[in-house]
């Protein structure tokens, strides 16, 4: 069957079978940031947004996203690069394999939670596993990134007032 959906802001079409998995379809459409890490629906590497909510694309039937809006890391290049610089500055990553799914969750968290505590961040990101590190560098990077974002936001507000 043919499905049509919005992928990173562009209307796309794909020919899929009843059991085609969204993850595979997205990779065929060129979104190779989306990867399968565990095969047991829990590592978070395949995280994408469907209608702006984080989802595990390894468990979504492609046929089900007909008419929906899907966002992958490829659609958030600028933001991802900005947060990536904070990750790099903290030396947070070793192999980097888990980054795409992790960054999708971080960028969703920034939108969903207002000024979260470390405990709330850990809970929000618990579904993204990293097997190299102990997550400490990532948490430092997120805190610094969120602080920088708040300052940008405040500065923009003051400019408007001035």
């Amino acid at each position, binding site marked *: 069957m043919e499905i049509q959906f919005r992928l990173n802001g562009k209307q796309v079409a794909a020919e899929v*079978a009843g059991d085609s998995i969204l993850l595979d379809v997205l990779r065929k459409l060129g979104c190779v940031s989306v990867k399968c890490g565990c095969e047991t629906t829990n590592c978070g590497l395949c995280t994408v947004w469907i209608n702006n909510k984080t989802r595990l694309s*390894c468990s979504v*039937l492609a*046929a*089900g996203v007909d008419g929906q809006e899907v966002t992958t890391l490829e659609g958030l290049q600028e933001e991802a690069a900005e947060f990536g610089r904070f990750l790099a500055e903290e030396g947070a990553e070793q192999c980097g394999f888990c980054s795409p799914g992790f960054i999708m969750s971080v960028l969703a968290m920034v939108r969903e939670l207002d000024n979260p505590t470390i405990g709330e961040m850990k809970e*929000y990101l618990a*579904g993204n596993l990293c097997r190299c590190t102990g997550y400490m560098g990532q948490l430092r990077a997120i805190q610094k990134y969120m602080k920088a974002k708040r300052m940008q936001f405040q500065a923009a507000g003051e400019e408007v007032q001035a």
Partner: protein
Amino acid sequence: MLTIQNYVKAKTLEEAYELNQARNSRVMGGMMWLRLGNANVKTMIDLSGLGLDQIEETDHVIKIGAMCTLRQLEQSEEIKAYCGDALAEAVRHIVGVQFRNQATVGGSIYGRYGFSDVLTCLLAMDTFVELYDGGTVRLREFIERKKDKDILLSIIIRKNPRKVRYLSVRRTKTDFPVLTCAVVTGEVHGKECWYFSIGARPMHAALIEKEWRISAETTKEQLEAYAKEVADGFRYGSNMRASSRYRKHLAQVLVMRAMESIITEGR
């Protein structure tokens, strides 16, 4: 491996029910568990277009559509206003946000999974399931029935005044639970009733009901005797996560903690 010949997004409940009568049809919830098993499905029926993803509140009940996600349960103000953080506590340890954005309440309940936190918590509350063909049935009766070809439409919680506590033990965060425990108390027909639900034993949750009068004056020894009686009332099994003896011990400890928490809050 899971193979699916046809995917159908049902346009009406009637269509979904009719399609589901074929032997090799399946209704999908969030597909979290379904996709990990082996099945050759001829028609996979998707209920996501039928408006079953709402949480509605009336004067007497909270009605949770079968396609509501676990994340919706966790964030529902209506549920929080009725039973505090108990249901949120029951789901917040399940894998991660992206998993809970997808796993459905209907899938959790229809599957009668041994590991289900959601089932454990809802079982101790005054909960019913609404079926397309079978009408409205008490949750505790529903889970003892054999899986059939009916369709689960919603979960209905009666809003009688209750105190609800939920506790679970996991070997590591986000993992399946080693044991789950819900304790609920309230007045039923003028009598103080206590409901104890223990799941992941590793069999699916079961319920024990007691007419006990417990207050701040109840001694610790008496409470411990109650907790032991409850823990002794369930059957336990062993698997890779824990032995049956360890599970029974955990059950007693969690029941005790939940009762103490309720008493401390005062009634």
